[in-house]
């Protein structure tokens, strides 16, 4: 019908009767199947638009109910009513104000009544979603009628409104006969509701509650809140803000949780009115703060609310008289700061947020004021929670923690995104608990949620920071006893502000910023928790004395400079304070007895503050360094020069080897960079701040490594000293000397070395050789000192420092010479591979053994022995694998005790290859028979058996590398013999140089065997 009206040209004739003013607004009447009166009126063409549509709908309704589709009736009823209202508006039909509301209200109730009449309760309950629209519509209409007729006000209707009521009631006409006897007819309801304020309230509340309950029942919470809100408006009009607030809170909470900022603003405004009327100052102020910072409001409105706060703040200080809305309170009112200003960031200066006690620490707060105008704060304070730090409070702790100097605060509670969505989802961690006995068995497994408190929070009931009405009493930290950062008279301009505090730093410990509190008059704006955690540390540092070398390593034997660094910590160095260093003989401090040198004073950030002179006094026992006055938490630095004396004979002799030259080469190649030997010096320092002596350890490295060797050529002896520079510095050497330490020089030492200065580069060696001769007596042992002067090669004007190396050589003399010869097989000129040949050894005694040396050789045991015959053992070994020893490889030789006594032994060998083959090794040992069985004759057969326990070392390939091992075996062997009394003969190797091998290094030409190989090669 509406579309017909719109599509036809204006002034269509048939529309004429419908455009007449509406005089009757009786609602729908659905109790009769056919409204005969209306039908007749329509026939006559006298029916108004409302009557026509009412009649048509009535018929539809009857049919639909017959068809069993009652729920379609409700939908069509709504459509009908909406379009009727629209059409009357379109046709510009004059209608008394409120008449249509009456019509809609009554029609709604009639439809509902009709449907209730034909359905049972269960059906009705199940189809609330269809009927609730009608309920809400009726409620709406009754409300607007109430406002129209002045029924919703504290004072009751005015005369004009009463007139309007009378007009409206007149248009209702008489009650239809069908409903006269029904007590709850729509007609009666409307009439009653319009007749008095109380009746209206009863009916309106009844409808409202019904609609709200239905909405809730079908889960349309938002609609229910909206009904609640209109109820709140009603109560507010009636002057009952208490009840209104309950509904507003409900709605506000939901709007907040869903993030509808405009609705929140609107609801808050109503709420503010409620709270103002109820005189709930705290809540009202809190809401005002929220509104003043609300971007949805105009600047004027915001200023208004801001002004309200400021008025309260000032009024309660000035006037003590109670006013209607601001009850006088002596106590300060604490409200949340969240909406007033946001803490953006906290910045520490210095940015480490760690200072020593008493130092200046600046804390800068960046606050964003959300107020529309500048607000003067009387005081801005941050309460600080102080806790003693666990563990040490010394300076070392400061490296362990490092915090950023700037803490940024996330903008959590902006009103655009509701807090519940800003929270991240649950953060889950998988947990598996393994059985302690067997880690393969899983005893339990689970999932742990780390942020249950956020995830599990109920959306509706959870306390929200934005909830103004439920202001949990903001706890203000008590002023006394708690440390505070304070500034007075700050003006917060709208937008970003930065406020600097100087933080307390007297006591060492950790300071945590807890609460931010701004005071405006009698209002305290409190930020109850500052999160994330903001804290700074104050440490107390004990004075710290350290000595650091200026170079990478301190070298012994040379004057070295070291930096003495004194961190004063909490101690203030006064005039007259001095460091007392106890002198050490091996490490003198190189200063003139009383001299001055300069020291630098640095502040805690390592910046040079000043320089001053230090005086130093040395006495016999102590060196006293008087310190300049230095403030606490500064650093005093000066340099000391000291020398570490290289001890004598620092290397243990390692001369057990047999083949010296080879051994040396081997060591060199395997250890190209030998570590330097280390001397640790302990310096004791008496400091003025402590009764205890401070020990300081300095490590010096010995730059040289010396080794000695005895070299022999027949009877002649040479001493070789190898000096290796193991440091990283090049040195110049002069004055290489070898001297005897025994009383009365018995040796003639002839140097075979260069006389000039020598350069030893880093990691290189210098070899020096002396020819040793003796005057008359042949000394049993040689005690020598090698000395050299050295200076760093880089010095222009070198000051040379001594290096000494003491060593001792024993059993120096050559006792035997051994000469080996390889004889080809009989009739051959040369040896052939694969053909047996002979090795003839000739051992010659050079010295008569009943001299001192002979006795010294036999180590006392042999003294009981008749020294006539000395038993030697020879052993032929071949390390190169080019010889096969056939038959006996070792045997005993009994040497007569005459000088030049000679013994020849022959051993059969077979060369395995052809070419110039080196001679096999022939080793000679001293054979010591056991003491107990001294009388027993030793037969060759029993010794020559290789299965004897003694050849442990014989079977061993006597190699240069195994020399130390050989020594150790020997030692354990003697130990066993002594303790266990094992009567075993043993072997004693000779010292190097005691047996001179003439055939060392000789080679023999071996020809290939008969040319079978050549034939084979041709065949292939």
């Amino acid at each position, binding site marked *: 019908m509406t579309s017909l009206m719109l599509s036809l040209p204006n002034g269509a004739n048939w529309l004429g009767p419908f455009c007449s003013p509406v005089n009757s607004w009786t609602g729908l009447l659905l109790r009769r199947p056919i409204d005969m009166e209306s039908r007749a009126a329509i026939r006559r063409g006298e029916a108004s638009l409302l009557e026509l549509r009412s009649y048509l709908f009535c018929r539809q309704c009857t049919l639909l109910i017959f068809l069993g589709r009652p729920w379609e009736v409700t939908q069509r009823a709504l459509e009908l009513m909406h379009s009727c209202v*629209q059409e009357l508006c379109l046709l510009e039909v004059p209608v008394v104000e409120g008449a249509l509301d009456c019509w809609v209200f009554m029609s709604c109730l009639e439809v509902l009544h009709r449907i209730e009449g034909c359905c049972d309760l269960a059906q009705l309950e199940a189809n609330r*979603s269809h009927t609730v629209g009608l309920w809400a519509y009726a409620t709406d209409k009754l409300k607007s009628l109430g406002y129209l007729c002045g029924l919703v006000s504290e004072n009751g209707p005015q005369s004009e409104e009463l007139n309007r009521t009378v007009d409206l009631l007149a248009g209702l006409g008489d009650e239809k006969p069908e409903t006269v006897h029904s007590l709850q007819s729509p007609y009666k309801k409307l009439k009653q509701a319009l007749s008095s304020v109380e009746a209206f309230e009863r009916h309106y509340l009844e409808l409202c509650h019904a609609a709200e309950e239905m909405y809730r029942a079908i*889960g349309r919470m938002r609609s229910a809140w909206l009904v609640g809100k209109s109820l709140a408006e009603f109560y507010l009009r009636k002057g009952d803000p208490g009840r209104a607030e309950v509904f507003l809170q409900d709605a506000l909470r939901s709007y907040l949780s*869903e993030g509808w900022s405009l609705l929140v603003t609107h609801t808050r405004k109503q709420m503010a009115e409620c709270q103002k009327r109820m005189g709930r100052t705290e809540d009202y102020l809190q809401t005002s703060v929220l509104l003043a910072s609300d971007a949805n409001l105009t600047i004027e409105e915001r200023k208004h609310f801001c002004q309200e706060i400021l008025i309260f703040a000032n009024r309660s200080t000035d006037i003590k008289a109670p006013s209607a809305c601001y009850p006088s309170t002596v106590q300060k009112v604490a409200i949340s700061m969240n909406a007033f200003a946001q803490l953006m960031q906290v910045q520490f200066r210095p940015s480490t947020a760690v200072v020593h006690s008493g130092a200046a620490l600046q804390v800068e707060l960046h606050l964003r004021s959300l107020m529309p105008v500048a607000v003067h704060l009387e005081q801005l304070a941050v309460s600080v929670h102080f806790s003693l730090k666990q563990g040490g409070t010394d300076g070392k702790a400061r490296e362990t923690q490092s915090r950023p100097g700037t803490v940024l605060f996330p903008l959590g509670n902006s009103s655009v995104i509701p807090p519940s969505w800003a929270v991240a989802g649950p953060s889950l961690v998988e947990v598996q608990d393994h059985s302690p006995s067997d880690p393969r068995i899983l005893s339990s497994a689970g999932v742990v949620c780390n942020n249950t408190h956020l995830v599990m929070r109920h959306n509706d009931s959870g306390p929200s920071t934005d909830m103004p009405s439920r202001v949990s009493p903001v706890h203000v930290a008590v002023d006394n006893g708690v440390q505070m950062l304070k500034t007075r008279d700050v003006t917060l301009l709208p937008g970003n502000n930065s406020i600097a505090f100087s933080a307390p730093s007297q006591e060492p410990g950790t300071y945590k910023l807890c609460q931010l509190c701004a005071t405006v008059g009698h209002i305290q704006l409190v930020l109850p928790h500052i999160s994330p955690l903001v804290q700074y540390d104050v440490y107390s540092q004990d004075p710290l004395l350290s000595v650091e070398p200026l170079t990478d390593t301190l070298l012994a034997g040379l004057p070295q400079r070291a930096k003495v660094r004194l961190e004063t910590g909490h101690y203030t160095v006064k005039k007259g304070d001095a460091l007392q260093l106890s002198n050490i003989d091996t490490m003198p401090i190189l200063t003139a007895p009383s001299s001055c040198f300069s020291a630098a004073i640095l502040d805690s950030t390592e910046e040079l503050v000043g320089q001053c002179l230090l005086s130093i006094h040395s006495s016999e026992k102590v060196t006293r360094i008087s310190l300049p006055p230095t403030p606490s938490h500064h650093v005093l630095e000066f340099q000391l020069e000291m020398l570490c004396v290289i001890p004598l004979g620092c290397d243990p002799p390692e001369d057990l080897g047999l083949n010296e030259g080879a051994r040396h080469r081997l060591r060199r190649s395997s250890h190209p960079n030998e570590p330097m030997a280390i001397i640790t010096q302990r310096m004791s320092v008496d400091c003025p701040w402590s009764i205890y002596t401070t020990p300081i350890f300095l490590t010096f490295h010995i730059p040289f490594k010396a080794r000695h060797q005895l070299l022999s050529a027949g009877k002649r002896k040479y001493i070789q000293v190898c000096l290796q520079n193991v440091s990283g510095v090049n040195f110049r050497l002069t004055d290489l000397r070898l001297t005897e330490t025994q009383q009365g020089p018995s040796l003639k030492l002839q140097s075979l070395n260069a006389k000039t200065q020598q350069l030893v580069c880093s990691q290189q060696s210098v070899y020096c050789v002396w020819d040793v001769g003796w005057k008359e007596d042949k000394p049993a042992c040689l005690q020598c000192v090698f000395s050299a002067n050295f200076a760093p090669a880089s010095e222009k004007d070198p000051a040379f420092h001594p290096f000494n190396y003491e060593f001792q050589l024993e059993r120096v003399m050559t006792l035997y010479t051994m000469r080996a010869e390889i004889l080809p097989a009989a009739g051959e000129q040369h040896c052939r591979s694969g053909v047996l040949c002979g090795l003839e050894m000739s051992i010659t005694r050079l010295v008569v053994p009943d001299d001192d040396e002979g006795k010294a050789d036999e180590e006392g045991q042999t003294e009981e022995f008749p020294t006539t015959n000395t038993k030697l053992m020879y052993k032929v070994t071949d390390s190169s694998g080019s010889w096969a020893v056939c038959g006996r490889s070792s045997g005993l030789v009994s040497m007569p005790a005459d000088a030049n006594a000679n013994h020849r032994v022959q051993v059969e060998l077979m060369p395995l290859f052809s070419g110039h083959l080196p001679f096999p090794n022939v080793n000679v040992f001293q054979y010591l028979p056991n003491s107990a069985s001294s009388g027993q004759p030793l037969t060759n057969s029993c010794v020559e058996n290789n299965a004897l326990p003694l050849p442990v070392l014989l079977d061993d390939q006597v190699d240069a590398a195994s020399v130390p091992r050989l020594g150790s075996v020997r030692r354990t062997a003697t130990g066993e013999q002594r303790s266990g009394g094992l009567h075993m003969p043993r072997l004693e190797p000779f010292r190097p140089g005691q047996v001179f091998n003439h055939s060392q290094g000789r080679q023999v030409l071996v020809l290939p065997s008969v040319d079978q190989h050549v034939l084979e090669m041709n065949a292939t």
Partner: protein
Amino acid sequence: MAVCIAVIAKENYPLYIRSVPTQNELKFHYTVHTSLDVVEEKISAVGKAMADQRELYLGLLYPTEDYKVYGYVTNSKVKFVIVVDSSNTSLRDNEIRSMFRKLHNSFTDVMCNPFYNPGDTIQSKAFDGMVSAMMVQAS
């Protein structure tokens, strides 16, 4: 044509809401907010089984005396709500559908913007222009 156009996030907070400036903005906010009840009801009524084949257009959510409220839900549960004046009876269902389709396309463009964080309020000028065009046609 339309008097109010709203885009509502999956979590039911407004991503974008704009109404004809001459009328009470607050009223539209309430209307749109309340309409979410019906949107949710309609989504859940379609049921879990048919969720895939569900039509995005939800049709008329509810009529009021002055306005008709239409709804549309994307597959990612973002809701579009268009409020149309009741007196504007010339509007057919098809036209509403095409408006929603346009809205959806424009919304997709917004989401494709690499500088847009999903969940933020929409501040795109292109989107704004498109919405304005839909509202201007009414006058």
